[in-house]
C-alpha cells in the first residue's frame, strides 16, 4: 500500500479522523471499545469496523486484560504514520504549487 492509499484509508471518514485524533492527542488511553466510543461521543457499534481496520493497520493494538478486550495506541506505528502523513502533505502541497 502506498502512502496515498494509506492516508485515504486512515481518513476515510470523519469518525476515523476523530479516533486518530483522540489517540494521537492522548497516547495513554487504554480502554475498551465502549470506553473509546464514549470518549468521542459515539456508540461502540458505530466505530467497531473503523477500530478493527486500525488494528489491522497496526495503528492500534488490541489485547486482553482479564475478561475485557482493550485498545491502545501503537506509539511506534503512530510515529511512523505521522511521518508518512507529514511527507504526504508536504509532497501534495509541493505538487499542487507546481501546477500552472
Amino acid at each position: 500500500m502506498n502512502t496515498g492509499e494509506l492516508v485515504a484509508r486512515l481518513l476515510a471518514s470523519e469518525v476515523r479522523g476523530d479516533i486518530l485524533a483522540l489517540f494521537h492527542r492522548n497516547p495513554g488511553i487504554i480502554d475498551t471499545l465502549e470506553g473509546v466510543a464514549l470518549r468521542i461521543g459515539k456508540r461502540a457499534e458505530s466505530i467497531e469496523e473503523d477500530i478493527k481496520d486500525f488494528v489491522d493497520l497496526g495503528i492500534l493494538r488490541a489485547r486482553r486484560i482479564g475478561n475485557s478486550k482493550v485498545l491502545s495506541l501503537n506509539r511506534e506505528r503512530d510515529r511512523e504514520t505521522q511521518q508518512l502523513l507529514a511527507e504526504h502533505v508536504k509532497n501534495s502541497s509541493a505538487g499542487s504549487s507546481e501546477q500552472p
Partner: protein
Amino acid sequence: MSRTRTGIRELDDMLRGGFLEGDAVLVAGSAGTGKTTLALQYLVNGITQFRERGIYLTFEQLPTQLYRDAESFGWDLRKLEDENKLRLICTSPNLLQETGGEENILTEPIREVQPQRIVIDSLSHLAMYTDEKDMRKELYRLIMLLKARSLSSLLIWEANQMAGQSLHISDLGSSFLVDCILLLKHVEIESSIRKALVVLKMRGSDHDKRLREFEITPTGVNVSAPFTQYEGVLTGSPHRSLTEEAANNWALAFGKNKQKHS
C-alpha cells in the same frame, strides 16, 4: 525509615521528611481544592528532583487536559513521557478491577517505566462503578497490588464538601485502609475563600497536626503558615482565636483578682 519526598518543602516538613516509602496516601478534598495539581507536582518533583519515575492513572480527565494544565505550571509532561520517566494512562474504572489472566491494566506501563510513584485519579470515580458492599474489598485489592509493586501511591478522593461545611472522616470512604490521609479544604475567612490542608493521619510516623493555608501559585502548590489566629477552620466556621497576648491579659487579670480577694 525511607521517605518519599513530595518536593514541596513545607509539606515535607509537615510529614517529617515525606510520606513513608511504599505507603498508600489518600488525598481528599472537594472540587477545585488542588488535588490534581498536588498529585502532578508529586510526580514531576519525583522525576526531576529525586530520580523517581511515575505513572498517572486517570479515569476522568483526558491526558490532553492534564498536559495543558501542567504546562501552565511549567511542567512538560509530554517530554517526561518521551524520556520514559512518566506515563499518563487514561482508562475506564472497571478495567482497573480486571485482575483475571496474566495481565492487569498496570502490568505493561509498570514494566516499561519502572516507576516508584503512582497517582490514581480518582477513587471516587472508581466507587461510582463499584457496588458499595464491594468497594472496601476492591480498594484493599488495589492498595495491595500497588504495595506488591513497591509503589508509593497517591489516591485521590473527591469529597462532596463545600466551604462552610464540616467534613467527617466517614465521608472519605474506606479511609482506614490507607496509611496516610491528606485533607485539602476550602475555608471561608473574612468573606474570602482560602485553601487549607491538614495531615489527618499518618500511620507509623509523627506529623504536623496543624491546619495550614496553601495556595496554587504559577509554580505549583505553596504551603504557608498554620492558621494560628483562627479556630474551627476544619469545621468550616472559623472564628478568631484569642491571641496569646489576650490570653495572658486574662490570666493576669484573674491573678490580680485572686490576690485582691485573698
